[in-house]
């Protein structure tokens, strides 16, 4: 099975519920400099029309052909077979930053403590247990959804998948 976490910007308001749910799920200690794996942004084009803005919720795209996995020299990063999420086996990380330097979205980060990679695991354990990823579960507006392969292909046929997500899932 392969799951896709989809983001629908027209429903987002950058409230950060997803970001906080991620912190709650992953015990993120922001007081000591840690960051959650999902973040929200409210961007305004200073040269654009009055009132125009974009709300975004950003995390790992779990690319089908993930550059971070390809760039990882140790096999620490891989595609989790039962869900298709991009996961890290932290014991194998050597802190070489190859994944971060390969990721087109600048997603992987490194622990200030052990220097090893920190990234979203798509809540693959929750998915495997029939639960939604924490961020998706927390979105009250339907701006984040999680779909399986069949639903993803159906949405793709209906042109309901963003260009970016199509691009990173070409070979899914």
């Amino acid at each position, binding site marked *: 099975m392969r799951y896709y976490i989809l983001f629908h910007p027209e429903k987002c308001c950058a409230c950060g519920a997803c970001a906080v749910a991620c912190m709650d799920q992953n015990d993120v200690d922001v007081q000591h400099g840690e960051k959650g794996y999902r*973040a929200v942004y409210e*961007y305004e084009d200073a*040269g654009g029309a009055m009132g125009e803005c974009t709300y*975004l919720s*950003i995390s790992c795209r779990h690319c089908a052909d993930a550059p971070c996995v390809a*760039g990882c020299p140790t096999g620490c990063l891989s595609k989790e077979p039962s869900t298709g999420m991009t996961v890290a086996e932290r014991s194998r990380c050597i802190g070489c930053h*190859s994944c971060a330097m*390969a990721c*087109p979205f*600048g997603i992987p980060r490194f622990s200030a403590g052990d220097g090893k990679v920190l990234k979203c695991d798509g809540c693959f354990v929750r998915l495997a247990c029939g639960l939604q990823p924490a961020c998706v579960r927390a979105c009250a507006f339907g701006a984040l959804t999680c779909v399986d392969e069949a639903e993803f292909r159906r949405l793709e046929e209906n042109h309901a998948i963003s260009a970016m997500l199509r691009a990173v899932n070409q070979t899914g």
Partner: protein
Amino acid sequence: MGKYAIIGFGCAGYHAAKALRERAPESRIHVYSDTGEGPANPMLTTYYVAGKISREALFPLGGQAEIARALDLELHACAPVQRVWAREHVVELADGWRENYDGIVLATGSHALVPPIPGRPEKDVYVMRTPGDADALLKRIKRGISSALVIGASWVGIKVAEALYAHQVPTVIADMAPRIFPTATLPEVAEEIHTRLETMGIGLKFGCGVSAMDRSPAGILSRFSDGSELQSEIVVLCLGVRAAVECLDREEIQIGRAVQVNERMETSVSGVYAAGDCCEARELLTGQWMAVNLWANAGMQGRIAGCNLAGGDEVYQGNLLHNITHALGMDFIGIGDNRAEGRRLTYRAPEGWRLDLVCREGRPVCVNLLGNEGLSGPLKAVLLKQTKGGPAALSTEESVTLTRAGMPPEIIRTLGGAKYADA
């Protein structure tokens, strides 16, 4: 049902085998390896020497036998190929044994380059490429070293210096070039890296090559082109690599500095593909033939070669010449041609990292980024898109991604992005 040969079993060879097996489940796949070990990642050797990983971890894809079982390969271990008769699709071993195939993937990799240096002793001079090289240096380090000279301020040179630093070995890095990563750095950026290295206690000696060596009571005396001399207990030569193409005939198959392939990873000989360090593909920014020896490139090329050999039609996006280094607490990324002329932009972030751009006709032709690993990927992605003829303007998402990674608005504008005001 085809019968295929893969020459060499590193990252490219592995991925070629895997792709072949996936696309042609019934085929017979023969793999020839110089060694009895699994595909080793050369990048990991210095981590092993530094004591950060176990020897086993040098083989992230597993052992040879294990992989052969999983992918149903016919393995020829410790069987160096003497000659590949490309047009006939024939592989010949040292003992004269010959085998004919439907198609071949060349994945022979590269060797550490050891130029002739007068007086170079056999002992205490090392290179760094294979697990065997790493074993040798580590063994020597464990016996105790009081000083080391690393010749070659390349990526490997820095990583070797980092490993020696981890063992508290006083180290000097020397290079004929005037600065570190000479093919990637802009002079001011190199200056900053030099300062940081010297602050850490690493000696630097640029602008002079080694002209000769002698044994001396303290170990080795290296003599440089400017007349200076340096004593060290060991010398590590990090002068780059050379594609392993000895088994090929230049008359038969097109070879530059490495085997030349088209975007389908096929060589000039039909049915013969090449992948990894032994081949060179078109570089995206310059359009020239170039090998860009990265683990990820090798994997991708291997996969495409394997896939296309089995009748697929996949295209390799091309190499982007870039240098990425994480060593001694620094992240350096150099993209593009560092000799290009153009408008210079420098941004120094309050957090300590810096970004330098050379722009021509409004587009960056060279990027140096020091100290921000998260910005490298997004920046590369944007440059690649623009190089491939994509829209010059950045999408909202791209602008946001760059902003998020710390890119200042003025540089985002230069790259064609909107003027974003953060929330």
